């Protein structure tokens, strides 16, 4: 491990080359001290990310649910794992996930390294019982053995899931995208970059729509997330009037040793507890992480359960104060910031137009298909 560390230190010099070209509107990508970026490691991560052998039926890779040609998601309400099994949550895009301070909709992992280890061994995703089959495939594959030796200076038998996760995370930290029309307007002073509707939409985004409270835009950069957890009213109908027994069920399961990753993806009711399942804090029942809005036009459907099909539906949902129809009930646990917005039809259209200006050039062709 010590020699691996030394090797990593030697590679620090290469780090600067990997991050020097920052897209407009984004800060430098945070890189953990113990996992610096190198070209070799990124290439290895790319290969691992696309390797479907790391699943029970040999058909599911990271890219199955986070496919580049689909905006690094799968455009399904909830993802399909091995044997076409479905879980409870919508696949978030990998684009700009490097900026999140916690991963998964409920933030149950602190970093991309931790995140990538979970899906292969989730019973409705990769379907493996444990990580051993992954290491077996790698250790018996000469190309992998050489690549891990080159990147981590480890022998075949010393390759661990930590190495695998570090390489995948390094690859994912290269999937960043800014340079949208919004960025040119906001950060390059190009006042023609947004059309009239998009400019009006931006004003609503910052003002009457109050979107910016959680989907943060700052003076020099915009991550479009506050990295916090909010109950906005999605999915609560599944546990309405049964919140307290569902919470008790979750706590009982955890006390008996249940794993959060497996429980929330396989139990539809407990999934709706959101951040509470991780922290057990009663103020976080039904609270989910604020996702970025960059490239939102290519990552439909929306919300943690993929229950909203279009951006128009999303705007209606917020406009009605956390419900699709203004006659629907509202969750008791709703965050304080969610309230009826009283937007006009024109204002709603402008807001959608603005969100379509958040597409990066590399995903524009994809956006045009929607």
């Amino acid at each position, binding site marked *: 491990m010590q020699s691996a560390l030394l090797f990593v230190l030697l590679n620090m010099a290469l780090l600067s080359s990997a991050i020097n070209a920052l897209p407009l509107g984004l800060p430098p990508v945070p890189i*953990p001290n113990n996992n610096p970026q190198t070209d070799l490691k990124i290439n290895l991560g790319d290969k691992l990310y696309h390797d479907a052998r790391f699943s029970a039926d040999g058909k599911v890779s990271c890219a199955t649910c986070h496919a580049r040609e689909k905006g690094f998601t799968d455009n399904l309400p909830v993802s399909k794992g091995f044997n076409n099994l479905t879980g409870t949550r919508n696949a978030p895009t990998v684009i700009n996930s490097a900026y999140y301070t*916690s991963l998964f909709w409920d933030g149950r992992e602190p970093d991309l390294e931790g995140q990538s280890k979970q899906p292969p061994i989730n019973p409705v995703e990769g379907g493996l019982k444990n990580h051993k089959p992954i290491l077996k495939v790698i250790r018996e594959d000469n190309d992998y053995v050489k690549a891990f030796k080159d990147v981590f200076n480890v022998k075949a038998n010393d390759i661990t899931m930590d190495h695998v996760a570090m390489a995948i995370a390094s690859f994912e930290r290269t999937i960043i995208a800014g340079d949208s029309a919004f960025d040119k307007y906001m950060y390059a002073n190009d006042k023609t970059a947004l059309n009239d509707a998009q400019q009006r939409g931006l004003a609503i985004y910052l003002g009457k729509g109050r979107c910016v409270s959680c989907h943060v835009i700052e003076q020099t950069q915009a991550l479009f997330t506050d990295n916090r957890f909010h109950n906005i009213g999605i999915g609560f109908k599944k546990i309405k009037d049964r919140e307290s027994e569902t919470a008790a069920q979750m706590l009982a399961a955890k006390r008996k040793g249940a794993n959060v990753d497996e429980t929330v993806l396989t139990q539809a009711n407990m999934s709706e507890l959101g951040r509470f399942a991780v922290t057990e804090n*009663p103020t976080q029942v039904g609270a989910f992480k604020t996702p970025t809005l960059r490239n939102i036009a290519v990552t439909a459907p929306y919300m943690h359960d993929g229950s909203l099909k279009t951006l128009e539906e999303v705007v209606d949902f917020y406009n009605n104060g956390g419900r699709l129809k203004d006659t629907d009930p509202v969750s008791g646990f709703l965050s*304080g910031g969610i*309230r009826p917005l009283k937007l006009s039809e024109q204002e709603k259209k402008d807001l959608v137009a603005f969100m379509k200006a958040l597409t990066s050039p590399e995903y524009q062709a994809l956006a045009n298909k929607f």
Partner: protein
Amino acid sequence: MKKTTNRRDFMKQTAALVAAGSLPLSVIEIAFGKNSDQNFSFAYLSDSHITHIKGNEFVRNWDRGLVRAVAESNLMDPKPDFVFYGGDIAQLGKPEEIDHGLEILGGLNGKVHYVMGEHDYYLDLGEYWKKQLGPDYYSFDHKGVHFVVLNSILTHEKWMHKKWPSGMDRMLQMARLDNPDGQPFMVGDAQRQWLKKDLAKINKDTPVVVFSHSPIQKIHKGWNFWTDDAEQVQSLLKPFKKVTVIYGHVHQIQYNQIGNISFHSAMATAWPWPYPSSYTQVETYLPKLTVEMNRADPFNERDATGWQFINMHTGNIDLHYILPENQNRIVGYDAKQGKPVDRDYQKTDKRIPPQVHY
């Protein structure tokens, strides 16, 4: 660029939340290591200030604050023995407001005890509130603890009963902060006589818990964080070994120890008040003992509001503040120091710096 949280910090944060925020009593038992039959807990909600606009319209933010506190407190498992409501259901004492508030509070599991607040009282001198909820001062015993409820927001009879153009004029006078024509709150002679008699029957070793709307101590007169006859009430409580006073009204975390009496305030479900500058005419006890809330974040509507549950063990209390958009807090009696302390934030270097927004 902000440093990203490393894994160890992340796990620590998660663990801290589990310990501080969990409702199941199993966790409390781990925390305090006591599990006698006499231990019990109850929830405490306060200061919802339900505000009627017109027709069927009410201020949504205050409605939602109460709805959320009800939903969260219903998660308590095992169920609390009862729930206390600390006063100020209504903003201007209107029957519409009291009824709308009670309708939301109807969602609570179990028995609810009510305390009278000045916003419930001064429109009609508590008539509608009492019609709906019964007497405004009473006592009861539960699992070896004597509970007393006082109406501490009365004032001089002459002022209350003077010729007002309308009850609403009287209400609006009392609802103002820093009102030069304002009047101090008091428990009054009649209730103190009753309290004396009530306590005479109680063994001095029995833990006593008193509920009032205003603090039965003097903190800041201009905002009526104050009860004028506080010392007289305190002297009636003095013979008892363990006394706790729990009050609403102040919309912030306060705690204090005066002699044998521990004082605790409760959060509002509606909005937070800032800490008042100290009142210079009398000694203020507050800054010495209370760890102030970090500044409320105006971007998060529920920040610095909340509710609490109270774990009663060995006759003293641990007050668990459940604070949406903030860190939950626990203030409990420290037997060694003989006063309540903030479990996590008492030490200066442990306090949370105020939020910064750009």
